[in-house]
């Protein structure tokens, strides 16, 4: 739980700011471009700072906290699948045979894909939490210079196609994930990492080299 503390603090800040803006904009609504959504349009995602949730017995709950916990719950569920898959493929220890590494990575990837057949975007990036991801990423990019923003996506060709529950393209580099942004996002267990590809934020399984979830159109458009 202590690992979640920075994220909870960040989310609380976001929540407070969103609530403070409530008089001048639809309550916390954020469009895909990071700007407050016009009043006559329904936001794609649940709005930041929305009315706190209500439990079945009528108790109000903190919307940000429950969204974070939902994301954490889904991450934990994924890690359980990952661990189940690891139990079903040969162990990987340090080896001087690269074939063992490649075979094991592929086998683990296949096993997870099988166990998660039918996985859909948003299975881990919980819909409740998606607006926060969008805001955190877009706010971070707003603070960066044009050169910095460009550098963050410069390593990958623009035509890269990615999909959920598939192998991250093995011939492509991994874009460096900006450490300052990483600090603002909820911490992940070692099995998973965030990555940016184009305008998408990914969750990648490190050992299986697998794309396990995608949140598209998160990163602001970067002029070439």
């Amino acid at each position: 739980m202590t690992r979640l503390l920075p994220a909870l603090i960040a989310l609380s800040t976001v929540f407070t700011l969103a609530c403070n803006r409530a008089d001048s904009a639809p309550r916390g609504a954020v469009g895909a471009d990071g700007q407050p959504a016009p009043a006559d349009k329904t936001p794609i995602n649940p709005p930041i700072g929305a009315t706190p949730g209500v439990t079945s017995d009528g108790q109000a709950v903190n919307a940000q906290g429950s969204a974070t916990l939902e994301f954490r719950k889904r991450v934990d569920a994924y890690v359980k699948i990952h661990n189940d898959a690891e139990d079903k493929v040969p162990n990987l220890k340090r080896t001087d045979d690269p074939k063992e590494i490649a075979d094991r990575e592929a086998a683990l990837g296949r096993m997870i894909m099988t166990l998660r057949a039918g996985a859909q975007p948003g299975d881990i990036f919980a819909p409740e939490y998606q607006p926060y991801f969008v805001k955190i990423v877009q706010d971070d990019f707003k603070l960066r210079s044009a050169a910095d923003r460009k550098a963050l996506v410069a390593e990958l060709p623009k035509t890269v196609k990615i999909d959920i529950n598939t192998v991250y393209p093995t011939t492509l580099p991994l874009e460096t994930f900006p450490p300052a942004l990483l600090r603002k996002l909820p911490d992940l267990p070692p099995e998973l990492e965030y990555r940016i590809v184009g305008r998408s934020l990914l969750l990648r399984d490190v050992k299986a080299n697998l794309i396990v979830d995608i949140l598209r159109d998160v990163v602001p458009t970067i002029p070439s």
Partner: protein
Amino acid sequence: MKTPPVRNIALICGVLALATAQAVLGQQPAPKAPAAAIGAAIDVEPPVAGDSVKFLVIGDSGTGDRAQTETAAQMWKAHAIFPYEFAIMLGDNMYGSERPQDYVAKFERPYKPLLDANIAFYAALGNHDDPNQRFYKNFGMGGRRFYSYQKKDVRFYVLDSNYMNQDQQQWLDKELQSNAKWKIAYFHHPIYSSGGRHGSEVDLRSIVEPMFIKHNLHVVFAGHEHFYERLKPQKGINYFTAGGSAKLRAGDIIDKSALTAKGFDTEQSFMLVEIDGDVMRFQVISRRGKRVDSGEIRRIPNS
């Protein structure tokens, strides 16, 4: 720029011949390898002391092409004169696919003489590297994406600059508390650079530099930029970029950069480093066997 007193490391570059340094320090030279046996084409100075820490620095090396092979051949030639005991890899250990045959073509074959001579490699991960490389024994990572190890008086910190998460930051802050005489960090992305393509990784800098300063780190090696650059010391820390051991981005060093002390971007290169007491000596050798930079860094005792 104000330099913290504990960080007073004098950098004397390309001025003192290594032989002069040897005389000043009163140290005995290591026996020279039979240079004649490998030809006279390489311009390498032998180490000054026999019991010093001697290592090779390579970065952005895993292409499997002719440039890598020829530069690797010079590394082996250099070993006959400067018998380094281990090699540090600054990332991008393998470009493109990482099939078993790629490990052979992009690492095992070019560096076969070094591997046969039991020279240990300690790799950092670059942005082109699958993190599962950490399980490959020849990369010396022990299954870890970031790790540290010690050679005599020198503590090495190997970071995964692709993904500087909280775990790694906490680990680094703790590990840097070591009482080692020398503290050296290496990782892929340079936090100071005069590269036109990439430049300084300021985001990463904002995270790691305060820790480097707080814990009196002495030297940083990085790759990513496909050239050699020795930077002017920054806040008392000495930075080298050596990401041209196979890849080359010719002419990429920005002219008259205020950061550059010495740059070399017309040919592939690698570094040879010796740490002997309070002195670190370095030399940079090109693909054609020319010494293109050399010098020494003097550590002030108790810093």
